[in-house]
């Protein structure tokens, strides 16, 4: 509960600050809220009691704490990266809105993660969705941004409707909305299967699994870069955590249903995501599809339905946070400095901005799962967990997909290092916060893989069916 409380207080503080600061020094809010949030992140690592609240509607244990900390870390990096953007004039009067919305959504995700019943989980889900629609439409004067907002809100409304419809059947068949009470009564029968699959559809929408992914690319492209990075990393991560927990804790009995289900979804997601990503030139859209493909890999971990699975998923998301945010950091830095967001604009980027392009290189290699950077370990352990469940063919197809993904992850590399152009992006200097964030990401990319202690720590907290 501590984390949520801190976030709530933080939100209130920012609200107050918004009210009491004069227009002249609104920009101070940026620094302050970043600093405060950093403090909150640190606080998250303090030891935390396990337990239940509200008669089981809210539960917390080591794993949820780990998950929340991962999310906090990610959000901190996102905040650092959005400095340049927020300091623009047109955003001047929306600074605190941004922080407010992000923090509330984060709170919603925390609730999702440590929810003890479906009501809480639903509230968290909506709390984590609706404000994001506002965030996506944040740039009031860009039609793309508006389109992103409307697409997100409408489709998510549909999906949560379907999800609820499914839940209603779960409730009807088990007579309870509490995980603890539902779990023993779950059994493979038509109504529950129907309910479960509708529920899965809703979650798949949040994790953006094929074929429930269609909103992703458009929203990612339309939303401001930092919002996109937030969407692609934090909300995706939170959703997959929640999905993992609910599958393991509630629908364990439906294993026979959801293993084949996830199998198909994983195949579809990886393949379609890759096929679409191959063609993209807009960096945000490119990363959108790449993140879809990555979601497919996450399912490989969930499939395993054991400690290995949960560990590898959480571990992968941790790495994914650093990796993806490294790439997004560079993209946002570039787009704020020059407004260019296309891969083809990055030609001979290395000659002008070697540091940034090396960061990008590391990020892309890590996304593709190439050693020695962390992505390799993350992917390898996902494959391991899938293989331990005996899905060797799935693993093989997954690795082939990883190969295809390498093909398109190398396209920016080629642009930056190989292709020549007369008009490269001019050399520019990134702001301090961005640099800090990138350093954090690089440190993560390099250390998380080799420092097995992190993996072991997660494993200690992990849970299975």
């Amino acid at each position, binding site marked *: 509960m501590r984390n949520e409380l801190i976030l709530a207080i933080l939100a209130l503080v920012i609200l107050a600050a918004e009210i009491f600061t004069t227009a002249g020094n609104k920009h101070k809010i940026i620094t302050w809220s970043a600093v405060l949030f950093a403090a909150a992140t640190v606080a998250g690592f303090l030891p935390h009691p396990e337990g239940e609240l509200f008669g089981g509607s809210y539960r917390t244990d080591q794993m949820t704490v780990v998950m929340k900390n991962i999310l906090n870390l990610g959000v901190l990096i996102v905040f650092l990266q959005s400095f340049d953007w927020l300091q623009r004039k047109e955003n001047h009067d929306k600074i605190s809105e941004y922080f407010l919305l992000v923090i509330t959504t984060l709170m919603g995700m925390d609730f999702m993660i440590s929810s003890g019943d479906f009501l809480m989980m639903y509230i968290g889900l909506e709390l984590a969705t609706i404000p994001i629609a506002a965030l996506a439409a944040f740039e009031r004067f860009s039609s793309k941004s508006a389109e992103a907002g409307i697409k997100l809100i409408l489709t998510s409304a549909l999906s949560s409707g379907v999800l609820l419809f499914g839940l209603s059947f779960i409730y009807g068949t088990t007579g309870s909305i509490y995980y603890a009470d539902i779990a023993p009564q779950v059994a493979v029968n038509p109504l529950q299967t129907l309910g479960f699959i509708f529920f899965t559809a809703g979650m798949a929408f949040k994790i953006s699994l094929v074929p429930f992914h269609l909103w992703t690319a458009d929203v990612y492209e339309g939303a401001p870069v930092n919002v996109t990075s937030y969407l692609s990393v934090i909300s995706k991560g939170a959703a997959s955590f929640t999905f993992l927990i609910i599958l393991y804790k509630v629908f364990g009995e439906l294993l026979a249903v959801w293993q084949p289900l996830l199998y198909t979804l994983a195949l579809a997601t990886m393949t379609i995501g890759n096929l679409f990503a191959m063609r993209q030139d807009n960096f945000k859209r490119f990363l959108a599809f790449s993140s879809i493909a990555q979601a497919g890999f996450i399912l490989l971990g969930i499939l395993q339905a054991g400690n290995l699975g949960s560990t590898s998923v959480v571990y992968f998301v941790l790495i994914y946070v650093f990796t993806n945010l490294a790439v997004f950091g560079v993209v946002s830095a570039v787009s704020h400095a020059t407004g260019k967001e296309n891969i083809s604009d990055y030609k001979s980027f290395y000659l002008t901005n070697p540091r940034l392009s090396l960061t990008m290189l590391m990020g892309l290699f890590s996304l593709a799962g190439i050693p020695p950077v962390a992505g390799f370990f993350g992917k390898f352990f996902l494959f391991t967990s899938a293989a331990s469940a005996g899905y060797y063919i799935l693993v093989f197809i997954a690795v082939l997909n990883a190969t295809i993904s390498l093909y398109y992850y190398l396209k920016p590399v080629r642009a930056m290092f190989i292709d020549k152009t007369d008009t490269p992006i001019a050399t520019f200097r990134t702001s301090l916060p961005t640099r800090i964030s990138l350093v954090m990401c690089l440190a993560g990319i390099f250390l998380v893989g080799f420092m097995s202690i992190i993996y*072991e720590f997660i494993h200690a907290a992990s849970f299975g069916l």
Partner: protein
Amino acid sequence: MNILNLFVIIPVVTMAAILFTKDLRGARLVSAVGMGLQLIAAVVLIFSFFALRKAGDSAEFLFYSDVTWFESLNIHYAIGVDSIAVWMIGLASVVVFAGIFASWQMEYLSREFFISLILLATGVFGFFISLDLFTMFLFYEVAVIPMYLLIGIWGSGPKEYSAMKLTLMLMGGSALLIVGLLGLYFGSAQAGEVTFNLLELSRINFPVTMQRFFFPFLFVGFGILGALFPLHTWSPDGHASAPTAVSMLHAGVLMKLGGYGCFRVAMFLLPEAANEMAWIFLILTTISVVYGAFGAIWQKDLKYINAYSSVSHCGLVLFALLMMNQTAMDGAIIQMISHGLMTALFFALIGMIYSRTHTRNINEMGGLMKVMPFLAVAYMIAGFASLGLPGLSGFVAEMTVFIGSFQHQDLFHRVITIIATLSIVITAVYILRVVGKILLGELQNPEHQKLGDALWFEKLSLVLLILPIVAMGTLPLFLSNTILDALKPIVERLTAMI
């Protein structure tokens, strides 16, 4: 501290040091020093290894050390070498050192070039020292990836295409590998805890059905890197587009990772399946031996000729491995080393000639013997080595392979051996064709009249490669005997069930 760690530490330190250099002079100096140290370390390793052996240490792997890494997954950083690995390390360090000098004048982005080159080397060394399949695979991938940048940035011709093709095909190979490795990993559960440790895995007799399933994954996965027909097509383009040092390293050392993995992992750990399926791959390798040689005859580009001959020679390596008797496998290992040296020599020479004549088309050159005698003689030596002239390494390798393979009791194996021997004539044909066209005869292009001979660093790198070739060719006994000893356990395991 375990001397083997040096082979990972030195390159990493060197790379770090290069970061602090200003320009080409600094970078090449630092990397030359670093790789020189590496070479010294390799020599020391060889001597101390055989000193221990002489002292009667008969453990299968010496300098063994084992650090737990991912405890819950029982993944270790386990290193150790037997004499095969030792010789491979020696080969690698020679080729790398020579490669540094071959790229002495790499003007464009020189620091980056040397860093990626040495990263490649790191992967190679790590692969040879590691005994834990996870670390082995990790280093394998490390070795594969810098290739893209090296070829893509510093290459020539259709470099993006070649680089992409090479990277993707090798990655496809590792796709197969991952499955195979995981299969072994979880298969080892039957003997208690799951493990990636080669030694522990080698004590397990996996059920045959499981072996049947996973052997193709592992063998083909490594085979792709070993240019197994028909999955060799990355190699001609890749080698043709790659810069000199990279072709040297890739054909010289990296392709050996394939063969090495094939017997150290695939065949050694899954013997029954290996025996069952050998015939399929024997046919494929026989094809690639002859086919590669014939393919080379028609080529006009020097690098393509050499790439195809590499296909043929590496095919011979796999061919001999699959014969699964001590002599043939011994021949395979010697062939790996010998081919590594001579193909590196070839690519170095081609690079040097190209940097002077700016063409690799054999019809546009001729009579170079007059203008660059040193290079020409070196080229002839390389040629003779590759067509198996006694006194040079190629002969020893090929003879051991053929004698060994022909000792096989089964008529089929003897027949394909005879088919494979055809390659030595074809090799002679294309080697002499090239030598006759570009080195001998009238001076084709008057422009070439004023070209200079090799410079000191070029001579150095060439001599570095020629010396071991001659040494192996004249006094092979020690090398071959040590390899035979190291092969004993492997062959025993392979032939246990026959």
